[in-house]
Structure formats: C-alpha cells, structure tokens
C-alpha cells in the first residue's frame, strides 16, 4: 500500500484501483463497488455501466495512453491517477500538463507508481496534487523537503502560469 500525500500531509487512501487479472478483459471484469479507480480501457468499454452504479469515479492513465481520448469525459472523474511505471519515464508529466492546462481538469490529479522524493517538485509544478509515494520511502521527509528544493522557477507551468520573466518587478 503506497503512502498517500495530499495537501502536504499523509492521508489515508480511500480509493481502490481496479486491476485486470490474468484472463480478465475490460469487457468482462466484475466492477467492484465503492470508490474505484478504473483503468482507461475499462472506462472506455463500460462507461455507461460505471456511471450508472458509481457516484465517485476515478481513472488510471498509463504513459502511452492519450489524454485526448478521454478529454470529453473529464467531468465524470473525481480523481485521475497517472502511472509512472519507472520514475525515469517522463511521459506522465506531459499527461498532467495537458490535463490541467489544455483540458482544464479540476479534480484530484494523483501520481502513482514509481513516485519518489526527488520528482515531487516537478510533479507539483505540472499540476499533480496528490502523490502515492513508493512504499519504503521516508514519507515525513518527503513532505518536509520534497516539494521545495527550489523557491521559484523560470518556466511557466500549471502551478505558476506566468514565467519568471513576466513576474519581474
């Protein structure tokens, strides 16, 4: 169970993520009750069914999945989890930027997978607001130091839409 950071504090994760087991397909897998994060393929295959029986819906996006494909559905999601299978796979940063900046997604945006201390600063800047820190990592220190190695930044980003040069006195 990963350790969830939200609003600069350790939080209990109330969501479960649906995983496709061996032999299961998006079309046939049983949909659990409660707060569920659905893989994108399941959402696409069972959208009507999910909407009819779930009030709170979450979505899981893999690095090679395109935000464009679910851009019209964003209003349904309370949480979108972006998976980082390996922390050096940087595609999720573009996914997050697009969700926030182009498609104006307002819900919770959660980094999941290989989420480590030294990437939290970048993740926050592209628009993540919750972080499933990898299991054996120091949660307290991540909250204390991981989000502020730098006091400011040059570029425009989700968390600071104006680049530094437009904010100079």
């Amino acid at each position, binding site marked *: 169970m990963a350790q969830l950071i939200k609003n600069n504090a350790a939080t209990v994760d109330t969501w479960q993520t649906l995983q496709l087991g061996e032999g299961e397909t998006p079309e046939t897998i049983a949909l659990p009750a409660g707060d569920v994060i659905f893989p994108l393929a399941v959402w696409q295959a069972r959208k009507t069914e999910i909407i009819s029986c779930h009030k709170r819906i979450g979505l899981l996006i893999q690095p090679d999945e395109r935000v464009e494909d679910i851009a019209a559905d964003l209003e349904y999601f309370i949480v979108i989890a972006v998976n980082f299978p390996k*922390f*050096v*796979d*940087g*595609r999720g*940063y*573009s996914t997050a*930027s697009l969700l926030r900046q*182009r498609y104006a997604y307002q819900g919770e945006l959660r980094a999941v997978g290989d989420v*480590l*201390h*030294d*990437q939290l*600063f*970048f*993740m926050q*800047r*592209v628009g993540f607001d919750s972080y499933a820190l990898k299991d054996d*990592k*120091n949660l307290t220190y991540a909250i204390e*130091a991981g989000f502020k*190695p*730098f*006091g*400011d*930044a*040059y*570029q*425009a*980003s989700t968390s600071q*839409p*104006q*680049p*530094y*040069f*437009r904010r*100079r006195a």
Partner: protein
Amino acid sequence: MYKYDAIDRQLINQRVDQFRDQVRRWKAGELSDDEFRPLRLQNGLYIQRHAPMFRIAVPYAMMSSAQLRTLAHVARKYDRGYGHFTTRHNLQLNWPKVEDVPEILAELAEVEMHAIQTSGNCLRNITTDQFAGVAADEVIDPRPLAEILRQWTTFHPEFAFLPRKFKIAISGTKEDRAVTWFHDIGLQLQEQNGEVGFRVIVGGGLGRTPIRGQVVREFLPWQHILTYCEAILRVYNRQGRRDNAYKARIKILVQALGVEAFAQQVEEEWAHGKYGPATITQAEFDRVAAHFTAPAYEKLGEAALPDDKAFHNWLARNTHPHKVSGYAAVTLSLKKHGIAPGDITSEQMIAVADLADRYSFGELRISHEQNIILADVKKSDLHEVWKKAKIAGLATPNIGLLTGIICCPGGDFCDLANAKSIPIATAIQARFDDLDYLFDIGEIDLNISGCMNACGHHHVGHIGVLGVDKNDSEFYQVTLGGRQGNEAKLGKVIGPSFAADEMPDVVDKIIKVYIENRHPDERFLDTFDRIGIDPFKNRVYEGRAHGKAKAAQQEAA
C-alpha cells in the same frame, strides 16, 4: 557577459543544497544506485572505470577570467591539476571524488557556474559559435536568446525525464560554426523583411545513427522560440521511443514519422501554446541583451606587426577576423603535440585568465573544437599575446590544420569507449610535427572518436577516425569528406578498419594523395570533392592483404 541576478543565484545555490542532500541520502542507503543515477547524471556526474567523471557547464561558451581561475582552483584542489574541454562547451574533470562534488558545486556557484543538466536524458547545455558577438560574418548575436533558452531549459518540469539526451545549438552567422545541422534542435538566426527569427532544424545528430537535421520551419519570429520548443519537446516526450536507448533520440522519431508529419504535429501542438505566457517579451529580451553589449572598444587603426615568421604562422592560423577595426579574436590552441586534445592544466588556466584580464576585457570563450578564444584583442597587442601564450604552451599554430585534432577522452578515461583515441591523436601529431609541412597541407579537420557515440565528431571531420572493437581488439575506421558548416555532411567510410599502429601511415597516405592531386589553391576538401574517394582508397589499401590472404598472413605470423 550575463551576470546572475537574485533568482539565478538562488536557483544554483539551492541546486547545491539539493545535490548535497541527494548524496547524503544515497550514502545512507535511502536512495538506491538506480534512483541516484539519473540525479547525479543531471549534475554532470558519471561513475567511470577509474573514478567519477564530472562535467561542468560553460553555457554558450562564455566564461570570465574569474570563472576560469575557479576552474583552475577546483581542478587543483579536487582533481589532478588539469581538466578537459569537450566538444559541447563543458569542462570535464576526470578524477574527482563523489563525496567532494557538493563542495565543488558550492565553489562553482560562487562564480555563477554549475553542472546542471550536463549529462542525463534531459535538456543539455546550449551551444553556439565561439565568435558570437565579434564575428565579422555575424548577422545576429545569438547570446541573449541562448541565455533565455538556458533559463528555459533549467529545471523544466515537463521535460526532466526525456527518452534520451537533448541538445540544442544556436548560430547567428552566415557560416554556421555551431554544427546546427547535427543537433536535436539546431537554430539558425536570420533576418527576414526586417524581422529577426530562426530557421528551426530538428532531428540531426551524430552518434550511432548519424543523421543531418531537417528544417521543420523556415522562419520563426524570435518571440516564439520557447513556445515552439515546448511544442517540439512535448511531441518528443510523448512519442519518442523508450524501449530502446539506441532508438530514443528525436532523430529516430523524425525519421519514423517523416519530417512533414512531424512538423505538422509540432504545428498543431504549437497552435495551443502560441502567444501564451512563454512568448518572450521585448522587455525580457532587452534585459538579457543588455548583458551582451560590446565592451569599450578603442578607435584603432591597423597595427604594424613585427616581421617574424613564427609569429606570422600563428597569426595566419590562430587569429580570426573581428567586426571592429583594429581588433582580432585569438584562438589559444589546446592542441599542442603530445598533449591530449582539449586538455588544460590549472597553471595554463591561470595564464589564460591573466591574458584575458590584460588583453581581452576579462572574458574568454570555449570552442567546440576544444580551444580557448580571447575574443577582443587589439591587433597591436597580438605580438605580446603570442609571446605569453607561447610560454604557457598555448600558441601551437595549428588551428584548422591537420594536428588541430578534435578528440574525445576515449578508452583511457571513458567507460563507453570501444577504443583509445588520445594515443591516435598524439601519434598523428608526432608524425606531422614539421610545421612547414603542416602549413603546406593547409586546412583540414581531423576528428577522432573512441566509439560510435561520436563525442569527437568524427562524422563531420574531413578525415574522421572512429574507434571500434573487434574481438576485444581496438581498430579504427576511417571516413573521408565529412564537414561542418552550411554544407555540413557526413564522411564516407573508406573501407576496412586499421590497427592503431597503422594510423599515422594511413593518414600520411591520404595526405600524399591530396598533395599529388591538388590544384593550386585547392584545400583538401576541394580536391576530395573533385577526385572522389577512390584514389584515396586505392592508395591506403595498396598492397594490403584482404580476406583469405590476410588470414593466411596472420597465421604465418
């Protein structure tokens, strides 16, 4: 040159603290080797066979004398008293201790230097023309936009973990001296109907799969360069291959999609960001450009120079035309015969810093040919500068000549190398040690890389030498006809590779073919273009056993 303000200083100081903390956590076992690796690489730190290799950035080649003195001090205190200038505006130290690197970074930060993103799969150091701002053929000074791009690349949150490394070069001259056709993004500044902008070239690169870049946009007004680069990088970050490191550079993506389809995707992406907040303001351009104003040049006539053959040899090879009358740009050669090309001792760094202070407004530049440039020397001072440079061992008059070799550190230092490169360079320098003969041979670029990663730019050498590994032995493949500049292209492989001890003879034969065939006023490349590769090939392989005959010879031996 650019001086840091509060934000620039804050960021590099915090970078030092961040890296100190990362090293501490790695030592304490809180960061695994795999987790630490990309972090240290993004601070220029490789762990090599002998010791770590540490790469310090010299953004767009500019340095002050104070910065060079600090490099001299750092090389002495934390290393063996010398450093190595690379082909991408970096200084490499070959023997520092990992534990010392935070301290080195702290000392560098004092003089506004750093090692940010000098390696790793991220946006690397921006490179440009070593004569920026003074070149007689300059259209637009690239340095203000290079600095604006430097800031944009520094800790960009979306592009910190790209499929592979990403190199940007920018040039503002008629004759390209920044190898812009062979970078991930090559930017050529130009003027169109009174407006300044870039020709944007994408997908060039040397390395394992050398490819000349292709134009994705003929003209992009300068204000849009950040939003446009973001569009390029976003397309690449999302679609560049991550399954195979050898196919992960943007050049492979551009080839796979085709340049038209790639350009179309970039334009579609850019349509969203165009005119966004990252559009550069005139105020920001003016603020940065104010750092690159011309120094206080004097009004000078042409100077009368002493009549001395050795001095005039140096003038012919090591000075470059300046746009202000009475001044010249001087190249201090780091290609002294017998010394690893690009290597410089701490003592030499101090000597160069003194020369810069005394004769060139306290500034200097690094060239991708691994030499140092004093950009603003009065012609009347040239004789003194030459004498002092000679004492420091920095006046070898071989710039652009056969022994002014570009060479990577090779198998002596680098874990990636298939073969040694420095001993090949020094053996060739030893063979061609007669200065009159070197001058007679004339302009020729000889570039050596110890492996196909091509740090020595062998593909674009008129003569290129590539170290290869065959059955655990080191061999060298030779290419001819490569070139940089506006007509940049890749050299052609001449044939089967050679053993190390054959290389001086091979180069000698190539040179002899040129000398026998050249027309008056023809440079090596001109003759090569006229007569083609065959005469060179025939001479080099003449009497050389091939195939079965070679095997039989080896058996007999």
